[in-house]
Structures are given as C-alpha cells and as structure tokens.
C-alpha cells in the first residue's frame, strides 16, 4: 500500500477527470445536475482510483507533451500505410506471404507496452499476438512490414523516446 500522499493525489486526479466528463457530456449547468455530478464523481473516485493512477510517476507533464507529438506522427503513418493494405486486398493476384516473428524491446512499464502494442496493431502489416515481459510475438502479412519492425526499429525507438526507457 502506498503512503497517504500518493493515494490523495490519485483520488484528486480521478475526481477531476470524472467531473470533467460529466460536465462535457451533459451540457446542462443548473444546480441539480452539477450537484449530482459532484456526488457521483466523488463516489467513483473513492472506490476505484487505483485503476487510473498508478503511484506517483516522475515527469508526467513532459511525457504527456511528447506523447501528443508522437500521436501526430502516428496518425500520418496510419493513413499512409492503410493504402498498402487496400492495395494488397484489391489486387487480383493478392500478394500476401504471412509469417510470425518475435523480437525483444527495452520497455517495461504498462503505459509504454500498451502504446507500442496498439501502434503495432494499427499500422498495417502487423498485429500483436502476445507480450511476455518485454518480448513481443507479432504476426506479419508480408516481408516488407515485418522488416520495418525487425531491422529498422523506427517505432520502438520513438516510443522509447516518449517514455524515456531506453
């Protein structure tokens, strides 16, 4: 169990996030609805605050800022490489050659692993099958996207730059 200061920080962040969602989704700002929102957010923040905020974490603001920049690069990669999948599916000869590859990374925290797994699943050519303690098992649809993960390692380096876990 963490100390009292860590728990208070988690409860406060969860309460603010839930109240923000309530106000943005409802749109009515009179006393009854805002009061009900505060009561519901407080109950949920007290019950399940340790699902959202794990411990203190250092340099959260810097990591969030770099994460937004990484998101912009990744959206461009998604649009650019989805044309590749469309070409492979609609071609009359269907040039696919599936294989299963396995590689190792240096990321260890939860957020970094989830970000890399989602990025691998969203950029066409590869889907994550299993993660075991830093080792990724990936199913690739052809040789070219598999090489982009194994040999170039652009995506792993960018995610390691965001979360600072070389």
């Amino acid at each position: 169990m963490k100390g009292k200061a860590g728990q208070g920080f988690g409860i406060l962040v969860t309460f603010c996030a839930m109240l923000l969602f309530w106000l943005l989704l409802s749109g009515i700002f009179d006393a009854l609805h805002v009061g009900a929102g505060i009561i519901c957010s407080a109950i949920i923040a007290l019950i399940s605050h340790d699902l959202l905020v794990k411990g203190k974490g250092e340099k959260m603001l810097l990591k969030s800022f770099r994460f937004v920049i990484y998101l912009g690069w990744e959206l461009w990669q998604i649009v650019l490489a989805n044309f590749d999948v469309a070409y492979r599916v609609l071609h009359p000869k269907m040039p696919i050659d599936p294989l299963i590859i396995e590689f190792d990374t240096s990321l260890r925290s939860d957020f970094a692993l989830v970000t890399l797994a989602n990025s691998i699943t969203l950029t066409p050519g590869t889907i994550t099958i299993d993660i075991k303690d830093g080792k990724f098992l990936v199913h690739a649809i052809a040789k070219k996207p598999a090489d982009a993960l194994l040999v170039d390692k652009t995506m792993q380096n960018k995610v390691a730059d965001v979360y600072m876990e070389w």
Partner: protein
Amino acid sequence: MVIIDVIVTLFLAAGIFFMFTGVVGLLRLPDFYTRLHATGKCDTLGEVLIIFGLLIYHLSHYPETPLVPVKLLFLIVFIFLANPTATHAIMKAAYNTGVKPWKLGEERK
C-alpha cells in the same frame, strides 16, 4: 457554404471506400489471421474518417450547440483505443487454442 459540403462529401466517400475494402478482405482472404488484418485496420480508419466528416458538417451547419462535436470526439478516441484491443484479444485466444496459420502455397481454410 458549398465548399464545406464538398469537403464533407470527400471525407464520407473516403471512409466508405475503406469500409468496403475491409469487407472485401473479410470475404476474400484465405485464413483467419489474415482476415483479422483486413478488418482490424481498414474498419477503424474508415469509421474515424466518416465520423470526422460528420463533425465538420455539424460545426458549420449547427453552430449553436458546441458540445455535440465534443461527444463525437470522445467516440473517435474510444474507437481508436477499443478496436485494436478487441482484435488483439481474439487473435491471442485463437493462437493459444491452437489455430494454425496459413503459409504460401496451401489451400484455403
């Protein structure tokens, strides 16, 4: 304005093209793992493009309710997080249960 209507139509047309690619891939590809490739990626992008086009339409035609585009933005973020996770979960279940992948040169499954 006419120019915004043309942009919205372009976004919707691109979205529906990607959705058709996803469904054609679901019917045509020879194996379970490759079918998940087609649907898990093209479906997500097609949906995001269509909802983004509708968001632009709402901002130009109904400017007195600015909270509805925020709701549509939540929907876009949720689809970006949820669809790849569901694809990965079902692929992991299939791999651990023993479905064999397809190599080049075998017959359709």
